[in-house]
């Protein structure tokens, strides 16, 4: 039944998440919220790179636009939370549209360079305008969970619900978009832009559209990320965030949304697993400081070397193989 009706699948999964969130402790709930945020951010990169063939190393900057837009609209206009998230997505989409206009003219490494420079340049703007709150940033308070959820309902559970719901909606929507005319044109542009052009697809416009949508999702992720840390500041969107998201996208499998959870869970879980493992031993500072980075990097290297298309795609290809045999 679930196979025929994906919507039911998503609703079912949402229910599972809901039940789980009542069963696990606060730390897991918080980490779950972070995973949901990463799911959206990684999906936005998969959409951009995997489906439209453009590379962004500066998605952190788009997340920052979303985070700041949400905080500003909430702090200054007192807009409701859901509207703040919409504004975040729209503001980042606008930024992405402008960037996309430039991006459509640039090929691979030039685009990578431009987005990288944006990720370095943009956060320093926060110190130029006092409304952006400088280095310490702005508060972003989405308020307490509604009273009817009960007194035991924690803030982190509330974050988790919001982020998970957003992630479910985004993935469901993206899934449909990918199967629509737009998705097909993007894929056509990705695999062969000259052929796509010949087939009557406006390559430039499609690339800009993909960038805009991707940026909008990144902006939503940025606002949700700001929600989890209740503040927004330039330091929250460093270059390493952009790199981590690109990493997560590759770990998930850049060409398919199917594995999007893998990258998100890995980004959240690996540092903690390494941390816990280390705390069992009396490890020296040098080991404690460098082992997490070493393991994440090693995992990344092994993934790109041996399953560059991501684990999901790998399994699928193997299955296809078996079917044809």
């Amino acid at each position: 039944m679930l196979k025929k009706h994906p919507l039911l699948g998503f609703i079912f999964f949402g229910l599972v998440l809901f039940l789980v969130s009542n069963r696990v402790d606060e730390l897991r709930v918080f980490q779950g919220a972070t995973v949901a945020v990463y799911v959206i951010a990684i999906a936005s990169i998969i959409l951009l790179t995997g489906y439209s063939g453009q590379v962004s190393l500066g998605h952190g900057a788009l997340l920052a636009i979303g985070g700041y837009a949400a905080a500003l609209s909430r702090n200054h206009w007192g807009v409701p939370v859901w509207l703040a998230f919409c504004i975040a997505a729209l503001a980042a989409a606008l930024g992405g549209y402008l960037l996309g206009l430039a991006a459509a003219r640039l090929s691979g490494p030039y685009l990578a360079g431009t987005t990288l420079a944006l990720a370095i340049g943009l956060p320093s703007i926060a110190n130029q305008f006092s409304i952006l709150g400088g280095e310490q940033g702005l508060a972003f308070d989405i308020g307490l969970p509604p009273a009817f959820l009960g007194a035991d309902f924690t803030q982190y559970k509330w974050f988790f619900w919001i982020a998970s719901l957003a992630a479910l909606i985004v993935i469901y929507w993206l899934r449909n978009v990918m199967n629509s005319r737009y998705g097909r044109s993007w894929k056509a542009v990705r695999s062969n832009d000259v052929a796509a052009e010949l087939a009557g697809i406006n390559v430039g416009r499609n690339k800009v559209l993909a960038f805009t949508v991707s940026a909008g999702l990144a902006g939503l992720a940025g606002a949700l990320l700001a929600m989890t840390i209740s503040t927004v500041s330039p330091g929250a969107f460093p270059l390493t965030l952009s790199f981590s998201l690109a990493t997560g996208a590759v770990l998930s499998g850049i060409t398919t949304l199917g594995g999007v959870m893998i990258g998100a869970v890995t980004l959240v879980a690996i540092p903690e697993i390494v941390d816990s493992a280390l705390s069992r031993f009396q490890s020296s500072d040098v080991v404690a400081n460098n082992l997490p980075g070493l393991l994440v990097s090693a995992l990344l290297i092994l993934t790109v070397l041996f399953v560059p298309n991501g684990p999901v795609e790998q399994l699928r290809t193997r299955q296809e193989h078996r079917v044809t045999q």
Partner: protein
Amino acid sequence: MIRINRQKLALTSALLAVAALTASSLPAQASSDPGVTATSIKLGITVPMTGIASPGYNKIPGAMKAYFDYVNDNGGVNGRKITLVIKDDQYIPTTAVAKANELILKDKVFALVGTLGTASTKAISASTQLAKRGIPSLFVNTGFSGFADAKAYPTTFSILPSYQMEAKIMGKYLKEKYADKKLALIYQDDDFGRDALAGFKQAGITFGTYIPYASGSQSLPATGAGWISALKASGTEVTVLFGVSSASTAALANAYAAQFKTQWVLGSVGGDATTIAATNKAYVGFLYGAKGFSFAPAPTDATDEYIKLFQSIYAAAQPTQTFDNNVVAGMSNAFLAVQALKAAGSDLTRAGLIKTIEAKGASFANPFLTPLGYSASAHIGATGYWIGTYDPTGALKPDGGKYTVYTTDSGNGPVVESSYKRPAMPAKGLPN
């Protein structure tokens, strides 16, 4: 067929993730506050151990741990041994929140201690709801004056004097000493520098030349040279440096390269002569005669009883590391934490600890040369500075041969010379 498989996979991977999330079960809740047993106290710190902000700061936890171990070896605090859980936050607020959550929810620490960086401290406080949960955040390492506000941050205690205080005291000094000179200010163009600008304004000081720099840009090859070029062109005689220590190094290195002589006045953050001297001995010559501001005794002052103790503890714990301002900062932080825990008595609770610091904090034994300002309404630590001059070896020596301390507040209060005399160190450096 294929699509179905993919869907199944998506679902499986999702369920796997859920399983991973549920993997750790909830330990039983104790009735008393977490992190305290009859024989132990667990504290946690998030600090940049790796990443671009880490050099220097990553010595702080080691220094704290060295002092805690020293206390533990001497019987602990009211019979309890202190363990310090160290988490690397890479100076990224999101990571800091994630790590603080691990400390609070998984490691179950009794209190946070020594959180570093304004943005990270703010994010941790807001997201983990320290105030609502009553979790003490002891002695945060940031000069942002806001954390001293007991209403906004009821469980957070700052330890450093604010940047604004420093600028006010420095401003008064500049006015008295160099009123007829051409002044220039090099400052980091973020909250750190903005607070300083506000302080200088209050002191009625205007500079002939303002040189702001973006945080991080001091490490670009042209930056320091650009500053010196601008200072030269404006004929600056006195240069105030209100930046991080890599900025001080860049400025001194390039002054050396351009053979540009000026009267340097270094703020406390960037005035770590040990770091500058370790970079290149030639720069020490340029430091000679520079003015420096500090609230703690200079790490080179072996006549100071605290420094003597800290040096011997640190040399035993970390024999390969140099003893510098970061080590003094970490040890002082740990000392004050032990003092607070000791004063809170053997029936240790979070609320009790906070009350104790508010009630008795101002009279705590501590290494700083300026009075502590803890009260029920203000959670401010050191409240002033002493002024010194760097000698030919790069050591900061107090002007006039003895520590003269100036105190002020982060508001409109005046700068006054204080008669404060630091109480003698408790026997063996163990708070009582």
